[in-house]
């Protein structure tokens, strides 16, 4: 499936424009809250985009993807706890540890299929969740406050909310760009072929396990970066970052926006978090409205919201 239709490009351009202009709106409307909300949206869009690489393009239903948010976040938080605030140490380490975790989890999980794969990725994420909850040195269940954000030296200053927002946005655009190149490369064709028909792929000579594993590691690494950003955004880490319901949220964002389309996860993250925000203002029991809405999208808009916007439906 190619994502080069005019409608899709227009939607993508419109979204990027809105995201780029948002801090100006927040400043003019004197609503700094929007900047905070959208920083969170952009960060979770990165995580959702990384999940989309394996879920949407690779057909791997990982139900433990938030664990890499946790790993990325904890790497930054723990280093900060020991006074190591250098971003050039924190972030590469967050990426490396996420990649390593994804390599181990993927190497074992990808030997299974279907519901077993879902369960084993969930099991791994629960395991790491409980490990984090047991780390009393780092606050255990209650989490850990980060007193200083990652430092990159001038001119990059993560303490400036607008600057931080734009850094997140640039990271998102880079991740989307990388995803775009990946899915259209030979590697991406192998990955998508294995989603479509893994048995056939092996019959024509692909050792699909390796490609799926590399895709899994790339996605985990990208999500770890989202974790490092999120820890800086909230100045706080806790096991809740990687609770299994967070993994569920990411899956919903991907499905809501449209699986296997480049901008789907961005649309999904915006829709999911905006709805959550708006509905929770209306009623305390906002999930009662939110749940049925998600069901409707899954049932009637197979290409997600992104598919509705561009008039495309996936089979």
């Amino acid at each position, binding site marked *: 499936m190619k994502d080069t239709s005019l409608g899709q490009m227009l939607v993508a351009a419109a979204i990027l424009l809105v995201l780029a202009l948002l801090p100006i709106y927040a400043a003019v409307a004197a609503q700094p809250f929007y900047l905070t909300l959208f920083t969170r949206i952009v960060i979770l869009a990165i995580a959702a985009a990384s999940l989309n690489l394996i879920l949407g393009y690779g057909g791997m239903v990982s139900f433990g993807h938030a664990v890499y948010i946790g790993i990325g976040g904890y790497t930054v938080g723990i280093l900060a706890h020991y006074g190591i605030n250098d971003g050039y140490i924190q972030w590469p380490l967050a990426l490396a540890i996420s990649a390593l975790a994804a390599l181990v989890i993927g190497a074992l999980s990808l030997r299974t299929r279907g519901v077993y794969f879902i369960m084993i990725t969930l099991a791994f994420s629960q395991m790491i969740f409980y490990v984090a909850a047991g780390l009393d040195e780092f606050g255990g269940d209650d989490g850990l406050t980060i007193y200083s954000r990652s430092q990159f030296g001038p001119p990059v200053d993560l303490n400036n909310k607008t600057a931080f927002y734009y850094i997140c946005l640039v990271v998102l655009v880079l991740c989307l760009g990388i995803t775009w190149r990946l899915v259209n*490369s030979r590697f991406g064709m192998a990955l998508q072929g294995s989603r479509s028909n893994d048995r*056939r792929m*092996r*019959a024509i000579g692909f050792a699909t396990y390796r490609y799926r594993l590399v895709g899994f590691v790339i996605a985990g690494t990208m999500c770890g970066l989202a974790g490092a950003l999120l820890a800086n955004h909230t100045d706080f880490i806790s096991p809740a970052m990687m609770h299994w319901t967070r993994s569920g949220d990411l899956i919903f964002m991907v499905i809501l926006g449209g699986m296997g389309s480049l901008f789907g996860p961005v649309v999904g993250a915006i829709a999911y978090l905006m709805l959550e925000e708006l509905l929770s203002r209306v009623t305390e029991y906002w999930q009662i409205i939110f749940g049925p809405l998600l069901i409707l999208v899954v049932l009637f808009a197979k290409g997600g919201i992104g598919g509705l916007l561009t008039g495309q439906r*996936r089979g």
Partner: protein
Amino acid sequence: MAEPLLQVEGLVKRFGGIVATDQLSLEVRPGEVHAIIGPNGAGKTTLIAQLTGEIRPDSGHVRFLGRDITRLPMHRRSRLGLARSFQITSIFADFTALDNVALAVQAQAGHSFRFWRDARRESELRQPALAALTQVGLGARAGDPASSLSHGEHRQLEIAMALATRPKMLLLDEPMAGMGPEESSRLVEILRGFKGSFATLLVEHDMEAVFALADRITVLVYGRVIATGTPDQVRENAEVRQAYLGEEQRGAPSHG
């Protein structure tokens, strides 16, 4: 006589109490069309699955190009030049016809850990793919989604994908199944064109096609080979007539 391309020796496969493959031996020579026929339940599909590596035999050997491949996994056999098409159409439905075949070309072009260049713009993938599509008569449908192709065209696409892996031998599992007479005679012509360039092992129920195409035929009953020979030899074989073709039939038998 040239060295056989594929050599099967004493192959045995049991499923519980049922012997699906019973001391089966078989040879396929380079460039020939070798058909396997037999009534339902004769173990044809089980045999193909053992040749492609989907099922492991309990005993016996499979040699390809003189090399023992009995325990080689599926994708390695394909790399050696053993290509197959599936009984049930097995394609990449979300890709275009050309993408499907290009993926098969890519499978033979070394590893696919290439992360940057647009694979749909690589002429070393697209050109051989288009050539294979044209060879099976699907050149005009290259850009159409594979899911929009007709049943007969899916089979042609299957064969184009097998061709694109530059096989030394093609395993075709009932390629004519579900085809109309026009579609299947077109496929017979396409398959006839492969003679000499690589060997074809054909499992097929359409007897007209088998007797029109095959250089040699092996007849399977209850997992055993009861006869091997040219179409004429098989037609005249008394055991074959009794077991399979039916005594009353003369000349080229019809559907089995």
